[in-house]
């Protein structure tokens, strides 16, 4: 398998990817198309600015035990992720960052907004944090960056995620946590 044929996270993380537990590797090891299903809880920030931003980006509403499907479409260099929470879906596009000294993924939302996400290891999984933000290609000052606490872990055969996004000044934006079962893990 050549470098360009490898899944996105494997290319970004190099040998660290092989150390990940199986469900995490399976969720991030898509070479064509993968649907994973599970459940999720969502909390939303109530401040007016948090609600406005959530509306602009199409974030799903709050809820408990929501049926969740994550679809990953691998397209060469990039991956299209669709996360459906209780019937409300959101698309993002993930691409490798330009040459870096550590694993970095670029995640693109709507409105031309992109985030540089540093990928690190945690016990039984990986974590991500924001190290850059751009709007239509223009870098934005740090005080505008959201704060991201994202962990993805294996729990038996499940891929468990905990994504907590806050606005730069601390107001909660969205916190979604749950699990999906990648198909290979389910087999």
């Amino acid at each position, binding site marked *: 398998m050549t470098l360009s044929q490898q899944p996105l996270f494997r290319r970004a993380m190099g040998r660290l990817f092989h150390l990940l537990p199986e469900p995490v590797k399976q969720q991030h090891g898509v*070479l*064509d*198309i*993968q*649907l994973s299903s599970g459940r999720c809880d969502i909390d939303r920030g109530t401040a007016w600015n948090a609600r406005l931003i959530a509306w602009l980006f199409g974030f799903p509403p709050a809820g408990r035990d929501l049926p969740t*499907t994550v*679809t990953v*479409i*691998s*397209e*060469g260099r990039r991956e*299209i992720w*669709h996360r459906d929470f209780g019937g409300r*879906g959101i*698309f993002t*596009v993930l691409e490798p960052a330009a040459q870096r000294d550590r694993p970095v993924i670029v995640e693109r939302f709507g409105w031309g907004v992109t985030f540089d996400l540093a990928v690190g290891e945690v016990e039984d999984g990986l974590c991500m944090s924001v190290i850059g933000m751009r709007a239509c290609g223009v870098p934005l000052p740090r005080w505008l960056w959201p704060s991201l606490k994202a962990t993805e872990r294996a729990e038996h055969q499940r891929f468990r995620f905990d994504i907590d996004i806050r606005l730069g000044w601390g107001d909660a934006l969205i916190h979604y946590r749950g699990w999906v079962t990648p*198909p290979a893990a389910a*087999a």
Partner: protein
Amino acid sequence: MTTSGLLHSDTTRTVLITGATGFIGSALTRRLLERGDRVIALSRDPARARRRLGAAPVIVGSLREIAATEEIDAVVNLAGAPVLGHRRWSKRRRHELATSRIGLTRELVAWLAGRAQRPEVLTSASAIAWYGARKIDEGGEAALDETSPVGGDFRAALCNAWEREAASATMLGIRVCRLRMGVVLGTEGKLLKGVLPLYRLGLGSKLGSGRQWLSWIHIDDAVELILRSLTDPLFSGAINATAPLPVRQAEFAATLARAVHRPVLLRLPEAALELALGEMSNLLLDSQRVLPRRAKEIGFVFRYHDLETALHDLLTPPRVNRGAHRGTPRGATVRLLDNLLT
């Protein structure tokens, strides 16, 4: 060697079909009912399915409506959002194509896993898009068969994930046959329905260079492959559902034009097609020369080898029913004409 169409079970079978209201699904349903088989059609729109399929099949809106005690001998999985008809495959469109095929197939296999009685076979549709799209000058001359590797574009990825989902049913002890469909020709199919009016007006055309390969199959042969897969244990794994003699697009245009007694005067350049159709133009300009190696190995005999014979069958008006209008002036005229013409 067996002859196409003769390897049928002698007993009535119950066949569950998804996508029964589609072009292939409705033709298959008709054939199964003609043979005396029982058909259960799964449809998102049961009322529309009833209108299209008639009173004979059992129509259900979800798998939950099928009783646990219902004995199902075979399943044919044809459902999925249509690939044609959209100018551009946006993220949303790709997602819809993926979930309609992969998600439904997964649901189907999960439902089969929960049943005490399981069918003998799952025949799941796929497409020759599995082999990937290529332009004629970029590998498009290569002959592709079931030993060829999977392609690298979105449609190939979609087909591969779709087939993988269907193949998971083998773990339930179910024989799985994955039919990679070529361009299915029939007067109710999208291709002929779309281009025939143009050809009849003398507007048939060569597309781009016209050298790109078109791998086609007559609807009757496609249905016969499916029917055969339901009872023949040799039908297992991936099987190309394409006629033995694929043609170049220019030959397709010329043959179709001859069949409707019109000339081919036009040529649409590649750039014009791309401008007009966007990503959809790839479906007309890509080259795939796919051969039915496996089908021939296991003894399937195609009724329509070559395009000319296939189009002649599809486009020749049906013979007049000699029994109709007997004893009437109209009937006498009809019989006279029939005798003169045959």
